């Protein structure tokens, strides 16, 4: 088996990379695929919290690299879904404890036994980013509809384009608030896609449920009713190659929105 290694990155911090990693990973695992999530944010790890797995971590990626344990020992199985496991970052070390070559080797080993390896990337464009990207062949760039986040995403997309191994780069637009878009206070999906010019893999609404789900250590995809959960499930399906229409975030919609929606879909297929 050769699984797909996808890096989830953004440039800017706090736009939703970790949330996205946890949710897409959980959704893919629920769909029956074997998934490993790698947290590469050394010293600022979060992914374990979002999955509620902090209390189970004995070994981290640094222990694997420094040969204090085998890779298999460091994989923490998810509480609910045995298809999902986590390779945690070390909380007490910094980015220099790992290099790109080592991460690539770990990804290569993991993809032999898994369908998906999702790499949660730290913010920035320095070593942490270089490490996270090293083993990946696909990238999902997360941004919010804000000028600063978009500027950073643009920079990342440029950097990813210089990496030969990365064959696909897609956009995930997070924290979208239809009301603000309507009142012209927030950039629309089309505006963002227009600037960044890469295919869209998902639109995730702003959802306060994400905050409570983070605190509970339970990804929102497990919540059947949450809109953001549905949006993430759709992202997983798109990753699996299915054509899923983008969610109608704005319930009572007019003809303009319909056209916009169709436009976004069209872009996504490019």
């Amino acid at each position: 088996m050769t699984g797909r290694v996808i890096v989830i990155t953004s440039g800017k911090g706090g736009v939703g990379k970790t949330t996205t990693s946890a949710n897409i990973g959980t959704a893919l695992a629920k769909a029956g695929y074997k998934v490993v999530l790698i947290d590469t944010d050394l010293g600022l790890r979060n992914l374990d919290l979002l999955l509620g797995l902090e209390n189970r971590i004995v070994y981290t990626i640094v222990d694997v690299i420094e040969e204090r344990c085998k890779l298999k020992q460091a994989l923490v199985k998810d509480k609910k879904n045995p298809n999902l496991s986590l390779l945690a970052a070390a909380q007490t070390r910094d980015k220099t404890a790992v290099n790109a070559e080592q991460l690539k080797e770990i990804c290569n080993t993991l993809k032999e036994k898994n369908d998906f390896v999702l790499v949660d990337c730290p913010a920035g464009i320095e070593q942490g980013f270089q490490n996270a990207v090293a083993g990946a062949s696909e990238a999902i760039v997360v941004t919010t509809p804000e000028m600063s986040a978009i500027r950073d995403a643009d920079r990342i997309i440029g950097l990813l384009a210089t990496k030969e191994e990365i064959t696909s780069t897609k956009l995930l637009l997070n924290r979208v608030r239809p009301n603000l878009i309507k009142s012209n206070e927030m950039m629309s999906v089309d505006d963002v896609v227009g600037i960044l010019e890469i295919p869209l893999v998902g639109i995730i609404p702003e959802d306060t449920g994400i905050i409570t789900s983070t605190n509970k250590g339970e990804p929102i995809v497990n919540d059947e009713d949450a809109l953001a959960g549905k949006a993430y499930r759709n992202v997983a399906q798109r990753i699996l190659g299915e054509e899923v229409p983008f969610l109608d975030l704005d319930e009572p919609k007019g003809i303009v929105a319909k056209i916009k929606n169709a436009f976004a879909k069209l872009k996504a297929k490019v």
Partner: protein
Amino acid sequence: MIMEKGFVENGFIIDLSTAQNTTQLVFELSSIMEHPDVKGKQICLKLGNLDLKQSQLLSIKALIESMNASIAFIDTESEQTEASAVSLGIIVSKVSENENAQIIQPQKFSDADEEKVIVKEEETKTVEVSADMDMPSGPVETAEGVEDIYDEMSTEELSEVIPSESFDRTDFGAFAANEGLLPNEETSKYILLDTGNVLPEGIEENSDSTGSMPTLYLNQTLRSGQTVSYEGNVLIVGDAHPGSEIVAGGDITVWGILGGIAHAGSNGNVSAKVRALKLNAIQLRIAGLYARRNDTLNVPYVQKSNEFTPEEALIENGKIVIYKKLRRD
């Protein structure tokens, strides 16, 4: 402890009117409160003519509430205590003559006379160790509220009043069985990880006395990502936040909230202990045994609180068990 059978709707009268001072009172109350029957109950406290300051009464209230019980009302002869109660919104009333509620009463304090000498010796020893460890005697900034219980206690007083029966091992054992590491996922505070014995190669299990090891004394908050690693005992006056890690060859004592990982006896010492004013460690490790906090208690954010229930974790029969308060061997 004498228990006279009676009945009342979901309540008990705890008669502490024979207590001679607050230390005695707090001590008796805390051992009574450990009785499983008292949990979740309404409590009427008979306090006799003991004068309690507001801060002292507050500590007593916190102690009762920490065992999920609550004060229905207090019965006191002291004006000072009454004033304290009023200021805290605690009802002051009289236990009626024909009250049918079960009365719980400590054995007469003087009965413990015989044991006094032994207890005294033990206590003196403990005090010496504390002095070595530089335990501050004044109020601790990071643990507000705690000093209240202790502020009136001179060590001398303490050594005289502890009735030896309060250290009854079987009692504590039963408690540990309720609170410790049982395979029951629902009720255990900590659950052993199935990692097997995680001692590094070449390290042998031992039970060297941690009392003779050097101690690293730290007066600070340990933040996420910070690690303390020491061959002897580690004493932290302050909180150890989630994401922090303490590794000690000997015991770990946190005078505050322990929220990170704590590994005592890291060189294979199975007699090492982890203790904290609030034991909330995400993982407890002693020697080669690793245990995780139960998911039902999984609060990923720092939960600060001024209510403390000191606990001590140690290995017993190959399991990590937790005691609700310090035990003397």
